[in-house]
């Protein structure tokens, strides 16, 4: 491993705990300074002030926030994420992980589909530059890329559930296969996957088209064509490989878009995933659950970004020289 790459990876790794500390502290503090006292919610409307005070004392809520934070993080490290107030008495980890599994199922499919369809489509559009197919496909893609999930969902519902009547208008199947909950294999999964894949594919294809066009103008492509290589070989060996480099970064943005998109998808379609849980927890001021969701979500996100950065450092030698992606 070259020396530049090692320091580069080390630097990214050192940043990781710092980011997580900042995110967790901000989330925790926001929850603790929140306008509604969550002990009062938990104790119920008819609780005596003494009861509330006792709960407070028991749970250490009278301590300064930094002290509480340190204790909380200590618990988190041992796998204790607190207690949900909305689902009375249930540990947060028991509430969020089953929900996360549901979101993970369809999001993984969306991520794969997005790249599997978007990359070839963008390459195809770029190769058709100058014909009517390029502007047409890019124009259609632009419409899909411009419609937020929030907007495409009601339209898809109208088309598939109301007009055609072929898909359920929402919800999630709890069908089990081999003892594992796999709602993915039911009709319920089609609408969310479709709604998230359309804008994803559109975005990736548009980006890939730009990259391919950039590469097509390079000298080595002209050389490859001139020395009589078959068009297919030029596209796969020369063009696509070079155009794919910056696409690695897009994976991160795609992931962020999925986290955001899931909230809307699940709220609109009533899918009991992590997005809906986040939304409901914020509405019902279940702060331990929110903090845990943000913390787990950020950790996954930051780790993925880190992997992408490292992969990028391996793929593209220029990064190692500069030391950071600018």
């Amino acid at each position: 491993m070259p020396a530049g790459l090692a320091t580069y990876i080390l630097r990214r790794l050192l940043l990781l705990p710092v980011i997580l500390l900042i995110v967790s502290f901000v989330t925790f503090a926001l929850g603790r300074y929140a306008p509604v006292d969550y002990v009062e919610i938990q104790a119920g409307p008819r609780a005596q002030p003494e009861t509330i005070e006792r709960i407070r004392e028991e749970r250490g809520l009278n301590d300064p926030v930094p002290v509480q934070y340190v204790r909380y993080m200590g618990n988190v490290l041992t796998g204790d994420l607190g207690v949900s107030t909305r689902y009375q008495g249930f540990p947060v980890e028991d509430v969020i992980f089953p929900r996360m599994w549901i979101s993970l199922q369809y999001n993984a499919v969306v991520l794969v589909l997005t790249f599997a369809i978007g990359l070839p489509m963008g390459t195809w559009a770029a190769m058709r530059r100058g014909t009517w197919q390029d502007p047409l496909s890019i124009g259609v893609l632009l419409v899909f890329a411009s419609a937020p999930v929030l907007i495409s969902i009601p339209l898809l519902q109208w088309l598939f559930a109301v007009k055609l009547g072929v898909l359920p208008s929402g919800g999630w199947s709890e069908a089990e296969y081999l003892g594992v909950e796999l709602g993915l294999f039911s009709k319920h999964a089609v609408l969310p996957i479709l709604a998230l894949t359309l804008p994803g594919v559109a975005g990736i294809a548009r980006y890939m088209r730009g990259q391919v066009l950039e590469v097509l103008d390079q000298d080595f492509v002209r050389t490859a064509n001139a020395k009589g290589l078959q068009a297919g070989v030029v596209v796969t060996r020369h063009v696509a490989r070079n155009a794919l480099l910056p696409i690695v970064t897009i994976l991160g943005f795609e992931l962020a878009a999925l986290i955001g998109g899931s909230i809307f998808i699940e709220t609109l379609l009533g899918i009991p995933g992590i997005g809906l849980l986040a939304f409901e927890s914020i509405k019902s001021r279940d702060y331990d659950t929110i903090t845990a969701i943000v913390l787990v979500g950020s950790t996954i996100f930051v780790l993925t970004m880190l992997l992408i950065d490292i992969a990028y450092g391996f793929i593209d030698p220029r990064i190692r020289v500069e030391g950071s992606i600018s």
Partner: protein
Amino acid sequence: MSYAETSPTPFEAEPLKNPSYRVLRRLLRRPVAVVAILIIVVIYGAGVLAPWVAPYGFNEADFRNRYAEPSLEHPLGTDNLGRDLLSRAIWSAQTTVIVSVAAVLTGGLFLGVTAGLAAGYAGGRTDSIIMRAADTFASVPTILLVLIITATLLPRIVELARDVEDLTGFDWIVSSGMPSYFLVFGALAIFGWTGIARVVRSQVLALRQEPFVISARASGAGTPRLLFLHLLPNLTNLLLVSFTLSFGGLATAEVGLTFLGIGVQPPHPSFGLMVSEGVGLSNVREHTTLILVPTAFIVMLVMSFNLLGDQLTDVLSPRHR
């Protein structure tokens, strides 16, 4: 010392204005760009002039005319309370204008450009602190943090605004919806500056060693003058593209936040609110216009910004010159 008093160095007087005109001329020769600009101007213009353009107020209910079909009286029909959908859309456009312009000005222009300029020009420790901060902001899932920030801080800010009202005697602050506008664009701005900062920084790094910068420094220009009079004008094209694209993104973000009930608060109109009133299977089935109207406006607006961004990139790309 004002700009006029100093004798212009040979490098600064000419090149500032001309390229912008050239870009504009080239842009206006492209029909797609013209259409995009027209749509943006119409929607933003209607939003800015809402009090004069909208045929009805955003909360003007006509209970005998609920769910009216499109007619001369109500060009796009009415909603469940008999409110004119066209007027509500125009007032919503005003919210979009306020939130996205404020977020771009504070986040992109102020925070982003300043941070980028400082990082690129100062280099060294300043650079790494600013860029690590940008990394941190860019590597958290924005929507979750914005959700929790708005959910926990909005009531506090409303409280604060009420205190200010009591102190000053202005009684319009809370009812004007200012606290929620403020919070929405604030939250969007905090997470919106990193992209611009990166772009500006890398451009400044490239320009720092150019002869015109070196000679300006040699002729005694101070740091602020160097940054804002010599470097910034050379970044205009780049910023133009970034801002165009971010306007589309911000419009979408505001709609999303408001839809979740944590953005602009009712009764203040917003496309997000209109969407949330229009969804639901019974509405989608029977009153499709309720969802179609805000949808059409948002898609047209966002698409125009994306198209314009594409066209600008094309026009500005050195290959096409």
